[in-house]
């Protein structure tokens, strides 16, 4: 072994974790959007919630390769837990966020063995089934959830005891962006850690990953749990920012939106969820004000076209262009 090789290796590995200028530019742009467009604060908060949801889905789908149609189960769970907590006098938003995320994580941990039990088809069915059952339960337990009328009487206290949520939604948007950024930092670390790499390895080649001694099942359960917890945080965030929870947080449409966001932005790439959420929400906003009735058609058409064109193709193209030394971005 030569010393230059060793240094090159160390540099290359360390380079993976470095913040790139474009990443910094992205977050500066986000900050600028918040500062420049105070009147669209509610939209910004909504984008942040969807981005966080997509991030959590990407961990499950993109990194761990677990096919799911029911990620909204955890989103809705987190929303209801945070909402119920806020309507029962636990007003502190941070507490609600942790409760929503934490309990959703436990739910994910409990559900993981069932989800991971079979092949792709079984996973689709179980995840969809889990979300449907939760939807049905939330509808049934009217006393707790408000049922089909939605949860009422949420009182969300001031953020960190200082900032009251305002009508214009400025505090809400800042809060949502801050939570998104923190969650992103966490996921970025996870993606760059050996655990994150082992997830990539499992998805790329489970046979080899097992032969390296990576305990596949444990890794997938862990990824599913973390993904569930983050989805719960996203749901809790939505509940607190809108101060309302209704059954549609558990709907199939939520899960499908998450998939679409990832498809637009790119799967298995942390910025995919963020970029996708921005594009998706703007497109939805635009299309639904152009053709309120039929924007769903265009959303569907977009899904079909993106798949047919090959969602890998643009990324493969980019990958070929980038300098060989840099490897996969976070």
């Amino acid at each position, binding site marked *: 072994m030569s010393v230059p090789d060793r240094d090159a*290796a160390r540099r290359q590995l360390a380079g993976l974790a470095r913040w790139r200028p474009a990443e910094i530019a992205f977050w500066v742009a986000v900050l600028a959007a918040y500062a420049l467009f105070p009147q669209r604060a509610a939209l910004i908060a909504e984008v942040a919630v969807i981005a966080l949801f997509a991030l959590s889905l990407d961990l499950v789908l993109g990194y761990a390769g677990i096919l799911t149609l029911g990620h909204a189960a955890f989103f809705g769970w987190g929303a209801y837990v945070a909402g119920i907590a806020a309507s029962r006098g636990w007003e502190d938003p941070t507490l609600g966020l942790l409760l929503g995320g934490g309990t959703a994580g436990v739910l994910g941990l409990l559900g993981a063995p069932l989800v991971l039990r079979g092949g792709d088809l079984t996973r689709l069915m179980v995840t969809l089934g889990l979300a449907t059952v939760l939807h049905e339960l939330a509808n049934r337990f009217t006393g707790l959830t408000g049922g089909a009328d939605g949860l009422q009487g949420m009182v969300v206290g001031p953020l960190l005891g200082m900032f009251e949520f305002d009508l214009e939604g400025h505090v809400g948007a800042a809060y949502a962006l801050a939570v998104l950024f923190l969650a992103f930092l966490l996921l970025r670390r996870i993606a760059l850690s050996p655990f994150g790499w*082992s997830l990539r390895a499992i998805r790329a080649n489970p*046979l080899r990953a097992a032969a390296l001694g990576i305990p596949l099942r444990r890794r997938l359960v862990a990824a599913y749990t973390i993904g569930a917890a983050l989805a719960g945080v996203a749901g809790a965030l939505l509940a607190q920012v809108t101060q309302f929870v209704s059954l549609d947080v558990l709907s199939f449409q939520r899960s499908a939106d998450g998939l679409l966001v990832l498809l637009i932005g790119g799967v298995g790439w942390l910025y995919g969820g963020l970029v996708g959420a921005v594009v998706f929400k703007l497109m939805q906003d635009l299309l639904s004000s152009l053709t309120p009735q039929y924007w769903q058609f265009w959303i569907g058409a977009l899904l079909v076209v993106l798949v047919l064109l090959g969602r890998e193709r643009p990324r493969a193209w980019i990958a070929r262009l980038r300098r060989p030394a840099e490897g996969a971005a976070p």
Partner: protein
Amino acid sequence: MTPALQTLGLTHHFGAFLATDNVNISLPPGARHALIGPNGAGKTTLVNLLTGVLRPGAGRILMGGEEVTGMAQDRRVRRGLSRTFQINQLFPELTPLQSVSLAVARRMELDGGWWRPLGHGGAVAKEAAEILGRFGLSDAMGRRVGDLPYGRQRLLEVALAIAARPRVLLLDEPAAGVPEAEREDILAAIRALPREVAVLLIEHDMDLVFRFAESITVLVSGAVLMEGTPAEVAADPRVRAVYLGEGGHD
């Protein structure tokens, strides 16, 4: 001396088909052992039994004297049993450095960590660079694995297995599909494997087998036909009849 890897009466059926028939193999530490046999002799089944992909119908598998028969695949790897695949099983989208670093991190028990980045502290990078250097892959460490020529991918396959610092290494046809010109590189690489590793080579290329192995087991129809030094195997008329006589060096 306790064998590094030992099977006792290993038997496995697929339905009515007897794929592994009372196989006893013993590899001392540092062995250079080859497993040969005609197609359908049960070599792949045996590898799958040894690595834990299949559970044997009967018999036992010991590593360093300890029972691993019912143990899961990943735990056997942590006990020091590593393997390569007959068909490349790599991560085409990663670089060789990333692949080997992951394997090294796994061996260092770092792979469950989700806070510190993969290269943190430099120990992983150092060992990964060292392994890549040993297999002549230093210059390619930052390239996409899927873009490497086949022969170098084959070497990476061995490098990944070695990164786990095994006590026993199963090489499943390491030269399969490698052009004649590059076979010498493969041979050189596996000859240079650390002496303390016991190697079990499964191979069709008789030239490679006879230049590498110090002892050979011949498997026919799931059962051990004979075991001996290369010279003994080459001289045995039964082996000639069932194997060498049929297809020569194939």
